[in-house]
């Protein structure tokens, strides 16, 4: 299976599975290597990176919600230069393409980023994250600057403004749209009693973003790939995005709640699902089982 997740022309980004983790969920390098088989994934999207160092948000960073969570980390990162220094070797060893998520701060920053990234083969593409309150003109300028980088460019649209921003973002040279960033919300933190703002994650986000993907699919030209991202918690959720017109998907905080779910979704959409044998007993099979474990158990059973 080969999936092209960027527009034809310029450099293009080919994945062997249409499933990847969303920016901010699996770290900068290979933090999940003990829990997830990276070979089964289509690509890695790094945590968001900025040119300057960003410090963690002070105060509450996590609010548990019914059926979800609010997260506000402040996107801490040591700045692009150090992120590259610290991770380029790991990236080189990963069996899949690495896409660098750049927080969309300013056009000059994108230029600086280009200077650091252009010769760097271990980075297969850029995902640009747009701020929620950006307007169409700002988005055009920012994406144009990022499009000057010699890498395939995915642009992650904000939840509420995805439809409004898409045309400008495509005009400016985005090779694919990631729809969408997690919606912002506000919730009360139990311990401090204060209202805090952050991004909202949970299964109920999926029907909201799925509709946005379906509408955008009808709105933008057919050759523009859309990557669906929002509230995916099962292989069926991922398949719904594909049916609504996405070429690939990003799994977000489901990976935290159940790490094997990321791989399971990738195996399912990549055609690698470990199917339960008709006569397998319950404790000889579980859906998180990989091919290797399935084969071992199969062998053990036919042996015994």
């Amino acid at each position, binding site marked *: 299976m080969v999936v092209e997740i960027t527009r034809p022309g310029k450099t293009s980004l080919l994945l062997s599975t249409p499933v990847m983790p969303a920016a901010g969920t699996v770290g900068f390098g290979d933090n999940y290597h003990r829990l997830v088989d990276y070979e089964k994934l289509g690509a890695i999207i790094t945590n968001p990176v900025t040119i300057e160092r960003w410090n*963690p948000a002070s105060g509450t960073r996590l609010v548990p919600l019914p059926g979800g969570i609010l997260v506000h980390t402040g996107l801490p990162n040591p700045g692009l230069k150090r992120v590259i220094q610290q991770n380029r070797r790991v990236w080189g060893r990963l069996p899949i393409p690495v896409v660098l998520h750049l927080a969309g701060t300013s056009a000059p920053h994108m230029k600086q980023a280009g200077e650091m990234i252009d010769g760097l083969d271990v980075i297969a593409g850029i995902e640009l994250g747009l701020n929620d309150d950006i307007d169409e003109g700002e988005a055009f300028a920012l994406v144009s600057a990022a499009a000057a980088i010699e890498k395939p460019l995915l642009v992650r649209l904000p939840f509420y403004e995805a439809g409004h921003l898409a045309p400008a973002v495509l005009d400016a040279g985005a090779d694919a749209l990631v729809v969408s960033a997690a919606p912002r919300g506000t919730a009360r933190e139990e311990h401090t009693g204060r209202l805090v703002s952050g991004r909202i994650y949970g299964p109920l986000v999926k029907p909201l973003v799925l509709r946005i993907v379906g509408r955008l699919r009808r709105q933008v030209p057919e050759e523009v790939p859309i990557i669906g991202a929002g509230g995916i918690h099962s292989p069926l959720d991922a398949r719904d995005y594909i049916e609504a017109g996405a070429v690939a998907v990003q799994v977000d905080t489901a990976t935290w709640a159940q790490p094997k779910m990321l791989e399971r979704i990738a195996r399912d959409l990549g055609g690698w699902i470990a199917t339960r044998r008709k006569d397998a007993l319950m404790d000889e099979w579980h859906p998180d089982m990989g091919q290797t474990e399935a084969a071992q158990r199969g062998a053990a059973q036919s042996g015994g």
Partner: protein
Amino acid sequence: MKDTQAYIERIRRVSRDYQRLELAVDKSLSSMLAGQAVLARRIEKDYEIQHWNPYLRELWFPVEILNSNIIVVEVPAAKSYQPGQLLSLLGPIGKPFKFRRKLRNILLIAYDTPPTSLLMMLPALLANDASVTMVLMGTACQYDTGHLPEEIEIVHAEEDLSWQDMVMTLGWADQVFVLVGPSKELANFADVMRLVRERRNDVPANYIFGVFQRQLPCAVGACYVCMLRSNDGSKLQCVDGPAFDLTSLHLEN
């Protein structure tokens, strides 16, 4: 760190408010050391999550390892569990507590939290003839200690957090571990540090450790929700913790 399945083998009530769950676990968890934890969630017979509430896993610090495949956790008695309940466990998480080579006297402080996360170290300490004092502060005073080993000296702090013979206890201790609740973590650590600095001229490095028990979304250093700031740069509870030298941690905020 592995993602393994386990089940509740046995449930014992140990005090008015707490029960202990004996978990039959993958043997990779039987070498866990004091300070390490697992992230747990209930799953159903078909190994699926039935509902996403609570969304994240609970952080459990074992209190005891019974044998190569039974670990014991202590949870509120008010929560109902059934023997046979399947669990998904992620672990071990974090670094073991580091004890001084010649540890004679250790001081444990639990402030606004049950001392559960400190209990796992007790058998080894007592076996090595260390003497253990446990100070309960704030809401920790409600914790019934009847089921803890008799050799431990239990002290209940006053409302102003002081206790009898405080200067002596602090001077005497080779090492201090402070555990705080989730509501005012950094502020509570700062309270304790103020107390200690008032009573001791110098607070050396590697003397007093703060133990964090934040809810950990990813536990693998990916999400940065558990990030702390210290004199040595950013630290992650899930990777570098749960214990940090309180003299180097930034406790403002």
